């Protein structure tokens, strides 16, 4: 039954349970407010939204007053305005008059509303309240004297981030919003409290005093740091990215951003930026002009192609490059006659290349994650790899979904985990086989051959029972599984499990443009949009049998590859290496030509996220120095090599060439998680295994150079971790310095106790200086006392 309400003379009908605030919003009537936020629970504590309601003896808060039928509300009557002005006066008496030096100035709700409801002089002549500063860590700056106690940050922690890191201590006028004593805010979503804060109490620390909001131009952008493709509002001044805020898009990032998406921009302005083409002459780096550098690259590539054959050319691209760049790169390689091009740098099992039917994707829309009622995550450091996808899954759990895990690590998921099977990385295969078996047996089907006689542990039985129920179900393969040398078997078993329980199968995706890279054809098995093309070597093969010439697009092999040792060896052995990169980096040691190309903010382009959404964007700022967008560089390189089809005059032209006129429809056809069966071996490894995840702030070249993110707790230098039982067996007691050997590599590192880990596993994050020398993310290890 709809309820009738009249607000300021306008009539509307609303559903029961609607608040006056929502009804007013529907009518386009603005009611001033501070504590109300559409994504947070109602607190009704600021009292700014007091309105007059007919027959009510006192003004009522619009945010907390449910509509009743026939209600008549006046938001701008003298009575209402007087109440609102009264509240505004109270808010201002203890608020410092420091707008001129406050970072919130110009985008401050209190400032804006004070213009409308405040008085030009104050009746409060007493000394104002002063609140002692709090240290919330490297990302959020505080000026708690400005706080108006709206508790948005507190509620965000409790309800959205899932962890209560802020709270209100003390009483009355002495009440303070603060973190736990001597604790910082460490959530991977912490930056959102900056946006939520309606005043200048919580502001961005990296942005502090950098610019005034009215000096900034706002440009739309898409984040390349994870497979979600969060929409960004990139704020720029004088050709420099000054700050990044979320661009609200309900179906992707809602109004949130992960800290990685928000603060990574610092890496764009890094000292480490490469701003001029450079060539190595007689072992010395010299600055060159573009013409010289490109001519050199073209002639060297041609020379090696002619002399050693096209199969001696290889290209490694970062999956955070745009579709256009990746497309032109593979086109260049294939026109030169080589199919040796890959973007799956951290992957180590390519058996599915011949078995897959399309691009691996999430298996459903991002917005549908909230609606799941059962799901299973396989091999993922979920919160760190996918901060906002994890948030959606958490919301699903909050609404009653059952969360199941088959994982080598345990995180604090900040929500109820229904069942978990904690197994070694290699053991994921057996666990999935056990799950398949349990599901088949429960259904009365014959157990598929691939599941063999796998053991069904009580945990797996519980997961099977959980997944057998429910309607909307998903099985998600995380980054740990995707990077594992037995990914193909895991995917095949997960597919079977999904079939048996009627769940959708999804791949969470380890990079910003993984789907886009497959669409662009930056894989050896297929050309653009799944077309047949010249095939070649995958990244694993290229590193195992180093090519004579290597083209690196946005790649830092020493951090970005599954096995940094093998990657380094391969590029060092190459006769000719050209690195197209926004940064100077390890390539200074092994490359022959360095070409400065734009990061995502300095070029137009397209990313395709895990749900297959095609998102094109323009450059937010001009390329720094002599930097050029990589698509232009590759296009010119194609011209210099006299290759056909390199005459696009805009990135849009490139995009249309790859994705077609109806890009979204084309990409949707490409999305497919189905694979043909692969051979599954159930004889598990009986050795000490490495669990090698990529830490949240080591994910890509940009975040690795974002200083504030690098100062967070999540960016602390890695240590090895192992269960107490294993440590005891190895003679470590509670931990200590260890020599860890893996294949050719070794590292001296502290090993600590973590009883959540499976037996026979040592968790050692990769993609980091400290652990680079160890080699592949997964594999057998030996551990000795240092």
């Amino acid at each position, binding site marked *: 039954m709809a309820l009738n309400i009249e607000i300021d003379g306008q009539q509307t009908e609303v559903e029961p349970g609607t608040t006056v605030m929502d009804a007013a919003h529907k009518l386009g009537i603005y009611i001033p407010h501070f504590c109300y936020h559409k994504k947070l629970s*109602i607190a009704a504590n600021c009292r700014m939204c007091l309105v007059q309601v007919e027959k009510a*003896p006192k003004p009522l808060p619009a945010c907390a007053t449910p509509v009743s039928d026939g209600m008549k509300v006046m938001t701008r009557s003298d009575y209402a305005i007087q109440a609102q002005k009264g509240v505004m006066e109270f808010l201002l008496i203890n608020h410092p008059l420091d707008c001129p030096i406050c970072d919130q100035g110009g985008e401050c709700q209190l400032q804006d509303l004070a213009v409308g409801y405040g008085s030009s002089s104050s009746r*409060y002549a007493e000394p104002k309240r002063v609140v002692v500063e709090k240290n919330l860590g490297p990302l959020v700056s505080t000026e708690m004297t400005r706080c108006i*106690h709206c508790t948005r940050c507190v509620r965000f922690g409790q309800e959205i981030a899932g962890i209560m890191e802020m709270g209100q201590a003390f009483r009355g*006028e002495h009440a303070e919003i603060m973190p736990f004593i001597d604790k910082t805010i460490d959530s991977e979503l912490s930056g959102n409290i900056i946006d939520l804060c309606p005043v200048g109490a919580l502001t961005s620390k990296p942005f502090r005093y950098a610019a005034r909001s009215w000096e900034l131009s706002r440009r739309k952008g898409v984040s390349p740091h994870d497979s979600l493709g969060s929409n960004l509002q990139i704020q720029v001044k004088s050709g420099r990215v000054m700050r990044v805020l979320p661009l609200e898009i309900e179906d992707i990032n809602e109004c949130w951003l992960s800290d990685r998406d928000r603060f990574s921009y610092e890496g764009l302005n890094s000292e480490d930026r490469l701003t001029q083409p450079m060539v190595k002459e007689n072992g010395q780096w010299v600055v060159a002009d573009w013409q010289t550098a490109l001519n050199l690259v073209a002639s060297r590539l041609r020379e090696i192609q002619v002399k050693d054959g096209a199969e001696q050319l290889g290209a490694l691209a970062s999956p955070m490059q745009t579709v256009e760049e990746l497309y032109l790169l593979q086109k260049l390689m294939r026109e030169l006659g080589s199919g040796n091009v890959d973007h799956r740098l951290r992957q180590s099992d390519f058996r599915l290349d011949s078995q897959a039917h399309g691009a691996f994707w999430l298996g459903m829309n991002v917005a549908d994650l909230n609606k799941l009622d059962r799901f299973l995550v396989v091999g993922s450091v979920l919160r760190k790899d996918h901060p906002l996808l994890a948030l959606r899954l958490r919301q699903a759990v909050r609404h009653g979904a059952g969360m199941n895990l088959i994982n080598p690590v345990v995180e604090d998921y900040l929500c109820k985990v229904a069942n978990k099977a904690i197994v070694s990385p290699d053991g994921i295969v057996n666990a999935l086989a056990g799950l398949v078996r349990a599901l088949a047996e429960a259904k009365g089907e014959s157990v598929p051959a691939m599941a063999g006689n796998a053991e069904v542990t009580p945990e797996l039985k519980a997961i099977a029972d959980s997944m057998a129920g429910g309607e909307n179900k998903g099985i998600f393969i995380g980054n740990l599984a995707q990077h594992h040398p037995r990914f193909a078997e895991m995917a095949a078993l997960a597919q079977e499990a999904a079939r048996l329980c009627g769940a959708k199968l999804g791949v969470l995706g380890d990079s910003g443009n993984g789907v886009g890279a497959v669409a662009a054809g930056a894989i050896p098995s297929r050309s653009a949009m799944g077309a047949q093309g010249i095939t070649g070597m995958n990244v694993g093969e290229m590193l195992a049998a180093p090519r004579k010439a290597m083209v690196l697009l946005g790649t830092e092999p020493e951090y970005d590859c599954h096995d940094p040792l093998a990657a380094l060896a391969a590029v060092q052995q190459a006769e000719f290496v050209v690195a197209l990169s926004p940064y100077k980096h390890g390539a200074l040691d092994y490359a022959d030509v360095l070409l400065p190309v734009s990061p995502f903010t300095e070029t137009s382009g397209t990313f395709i996220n895990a749900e297959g959404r095609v998102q094109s964007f323009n450059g937010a700022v001009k390329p720094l120095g002599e930097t050029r967008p990589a698509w232009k560089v590759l296009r010119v390189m194609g011209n210099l090599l006299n290759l056909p089809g390199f005459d696009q005059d805009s990135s849009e032209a490139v995009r249309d060439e790859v994705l077609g006129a109806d890009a979204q429809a084309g990409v949707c056809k490409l999305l497919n998680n189905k694979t043909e069966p692969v051979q599954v071996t159930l004889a598990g490894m009986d050795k000490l295994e490495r669990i090698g995840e990529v830490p949240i702030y080591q994910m890509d070249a940009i975040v690795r150079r974002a200083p504030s993110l690098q100062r967070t707790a999540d960016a602390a230098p890695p240590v090895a971790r192992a269960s107490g039982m294993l440590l005891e067996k190895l003679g470590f007691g509670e931990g200590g310095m260890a020599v860890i050997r893996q294949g050719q590599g070794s590292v001296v590192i502290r090993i600590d106790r973590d009883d959540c880990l499976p037996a026979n596993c040592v968790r050692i994050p990769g993609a980091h200086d400290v652990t680079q020398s160890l080699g592949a993310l997964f594999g057998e290890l030996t551990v000795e006392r240092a």
Partner: protein
Amino acid sequence: MVIQGGPVIFNTLHLSDSWKLSSYESAGGYSALKKILAEKTPAETIIAEVKTSALRGRGGAGFPTGLKWSFMPRQFPGDKYVVCNSDEGEPGTFKDRDIMRYNPHALIEGMIIAGYTLGAKAGYNYIHGEIFDIYEGMERAVEEARAAGYLGDNILGSGFSFNLYNHHGYGAYICGEETALLESIEGKKGQPRFKPPFPASFGLYGKPTTINNTETFASIPYIMREGGQKFLELGKPNNGGTKLFSVSGHVEKPGNYEVSLGTPFSELLQMAGGIKGGRKLKAVIPGGSSAPVLPGEIMMDCTMDFDSIAKAGSMLGSGAVIVMDESVCMVRALERLSYFYFEESCGQCTPCREGTGWMYRVVHRIEHGQGRPEDLELLDSVAANIAGRTICALGDAAAMPVQGMLKHYRHEFEHHIEHKKCMV
């Protein structure tokens, strides 16, 4: 004054060890409960009886108890709770502690009957944090009742189960606000919730909950034993029963007095021995510190019941009668009262958090000879901006004393501002 029909609350006071179960039983205690359980009296009948009694909430607001009980969704499946608000923190109020000290079983029996009526299997008695000995006494009483089979599973073989838990707070005045009290029981910071939803639909742990004051619950056994009509006749229409008045201030014999509602104030004053030292009565705060002050001459025409005091422009509140003689400076008195609300505001919502401190500071400077001519208008305005604008009633409670004082004693404040010293 002798109450015809005997005292309701302090019906064991004439006995030695009045707090013991045996004393209570000898005065007819638990007979109502036994009867209800034996006869399986329908809840509707009990609620009707409470309605007949015209028992009004003794915690301050005076809401009809029978009506409140009828709001409880009794038939609703799932847990329901009854909660007793013994967080007596209002300055001037000291009656509930005496009920718990001298006749705890009246409260326990009242809560069990409430639990039976409202379909609750558990009750919580939230006791003010600064009266720990009372809490310990209550614990002993509950233990006694449990041992005697009045509490626990299958009470007296009736199939009805009810458990009672005492919970002591830590001394925050705000926890006497019923929803802040619920938050506090749940282990959270004591801050009021906004209403709706009301506790009857979303109370303790989100379950339907009925909250009553100690004295309210303690009146229930009498009503069920002697009948609602008899209770009503103890008082006057719409103001049934007797009431405890905590008389304090400038009287010869301060203390708790149980008298019929409708008793003239002059009689109550007489019971308390009259004004101390034979001085003149100046003013009375009739219902705890948050009630507006009334001049002595108005009070002398009042009877002690909800309606009479409300008509005079104040409220009966919790029945804390603060008597002031002619030596009292009203500016000084208000300074003290304002300080209390400033200190006890929970800080959750804006008008109270910011306004209580503002009011205190203005009154403080008037008291200290630094008042400004515009200050009284400012106080009027700040108090008006707090009253009715807050989440809970603490805002009103803080504003009313200011408004009451300025209404009746504005000239004293003006004198203070002008002459920078006291009139008295």
